[in-house]
């Protein structure tokens, strides 16, 4: 059993995903054959133009929006920055209050901190032990000057799903003018992202989390939402996002979104089966652990554990030595002194949070890989616990 079945086993799909071969195939012509600039008037340009617009159309129909509501960006970090700062900038200094949550990705939290320095008020809502925000707490946080609510659809560390549809409905009932943004980066593979159904005004998506290329993403911006561009230049994307369009990237993003939605049910079924089997095995074979992912309120990919008494980065590197790629919420791995803000937000103590490991499964994983991981994990944890001067001594 403890035979290395292959060099590299990838259980870190929340960090990034491999580009699907079908996506890669669609992208390939747009590097050195059809290399025109989307904005050029000649034949090369037209080729690029039609490719991008075809992708935009496909994406718009998938997201239930109109074509000109899709703005291509370099990924979700940029989309989130554009959403938050673009809306606030458009207010030209008017008093503003943003509501967000304590479990957002840094690509929301850090821009919020920057806006706070400029005098914007920000409320960071707590979440429950399951990593889900209570819609009532959102409504209760709304003030007269609340202009923007930004709440992630799926959390990247836990996999927890926020009930965006309910939150939007309740928030808009209290004040229909509030602009609602969701970071849907981790949701597209697993949940419907119809902006009509969700009711959101802005939504961020990234290519590389959905078996598409890195460095490309989009921001859905509902018609009529005021937004001031962050970068000025050649007027691309209706001047909201200047910069020569990443044609192969956008073509890949279009294909990736199409495949994600078309194969969602199949992938969800496969991945959740693997994930549940893995969780069962870990709970059976490793004592003294905490399952941080509440599987009933999470997407199918995530299994986040704390292995009490073993430090996360060390676990990660033991698994890496066995050819298994995972990630950790330990401070040691991030270079900061604080462990994962998400784990702290769901009430995990610091000293325990350092022992967290996130396994995120994907559509190419299989049962053999899980069995292999289950065969090497217990001894890695045991080894580290033996080394720990404080554990069971």
């Amino acid at each position, binding site marked *: 059993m403890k035979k290395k079945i292959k060099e590299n086993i990838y259980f870190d799909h929340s960090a990034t995903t491999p580009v699907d071969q079908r996506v890669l195939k669609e992208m390939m012509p747009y590097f050195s054959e059809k290399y025109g600039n989307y904005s050029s008037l000649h034949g090369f340009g037209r080729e690029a133009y039609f490719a991008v617009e075809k992708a935009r159309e496909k994406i718009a129909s998938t997201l239930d929006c109109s074509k000109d509501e899709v703005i291509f960006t370099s990924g979700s970090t940029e989309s989130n920055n554009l959403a938050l700062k673009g809306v606030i900038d458009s207010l030209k200094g008017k008093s503003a209050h943003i509501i967000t949550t304590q479990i957002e990705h840094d690509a929301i939290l850090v821009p919020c901190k920057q806006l706070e320095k400029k005098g914007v008020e920000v409320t960071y809502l707590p979440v429950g032990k399951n990593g889900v925000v209570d819609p009532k707490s959102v409504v209760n946080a709304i003030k007269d000057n609340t202009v923007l609510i930004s709440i992630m659809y799926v959390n990247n560390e836990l996999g927890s799903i926020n009930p965006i549809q309910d939150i939007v409905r309740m928030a808009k009932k209290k004040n229909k003018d509030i602009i609602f943004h969701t970071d849907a980066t981790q949701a597209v593979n697993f949940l419907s992202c119809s902006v009509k159904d969700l009711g959101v005004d802005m939504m961020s998506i990234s290519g590389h989390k959905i078996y598409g290329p890195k460095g490309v993403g989009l921001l859905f911006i509902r018609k009529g939402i005021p937004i001031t561009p962050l970068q000025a230049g050649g007027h691309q994307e209706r001047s909201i996002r200047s910069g020569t369009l990443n044609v192969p990237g956008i073509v890949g993003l279009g294909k990736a979104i199409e495949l994600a939605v078309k194969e969602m049910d199949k992938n969800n079924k496969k991945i959740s089966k693997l994930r549940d089997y893995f969780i069962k095995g870990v709970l059976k074979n490793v004592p003294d652990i905490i399952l941080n992912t509440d599987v009933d309120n999470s997407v199918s990919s995530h299994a986040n554990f704390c292995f009490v008494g073993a430090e996360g*980065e060390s676990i990660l*590197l*033991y698994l890496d*030595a066995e050819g298994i790629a995972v990630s950790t919420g330990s*401070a*040691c791995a991030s270079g900061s002194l604080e462990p994962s803000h998400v784990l702290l937000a769901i009430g995990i103590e610091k000293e325990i949070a350092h022992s967290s490991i996130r396994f995120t499964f994907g559509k190419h994983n299989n049962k053999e890989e899980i069995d292999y991981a289950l065969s090497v994990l217990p001894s890695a944890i045991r080894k580290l616990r033996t*080394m720990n*001067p404080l554990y069971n001594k």
Partner: protein
Amino acid sequence: MIYSDKVIQHFKNPHNQGSIENADTVGEVGNPSCGDVMKIYLKIEDRIIKDVKFETLGCAAAIAVSSALTDMVKGKSIDEALEITRQQIIEDLGGLPEVKVHCSMLGIEALHEAIKKYEKKD
């Protein structure tokens, strides 16, 4: 962040890991809420460190530092051991990533703590 091969070697097969039952002195530093704790056990005869063992909770850098430092102090006199600097440990490990340099202090502090306690006892 990339670890040197030496760090990974120490991490995977740490030297002098464990405890000494009748140690002459023990030093423990760090804080579990920061994710790093190191405990060093010394057996001392005629002011010479005859044996040394460590237990560490922490990242690969903390474990590698513990392993390398215990190698370095074994057989040295107390005074020689006190002269070991973090720079020496880092060099011995073929370098540490910038954000991990503080881990080298943990080892030195644990050693100094153990020796301080020993000197007080004597």
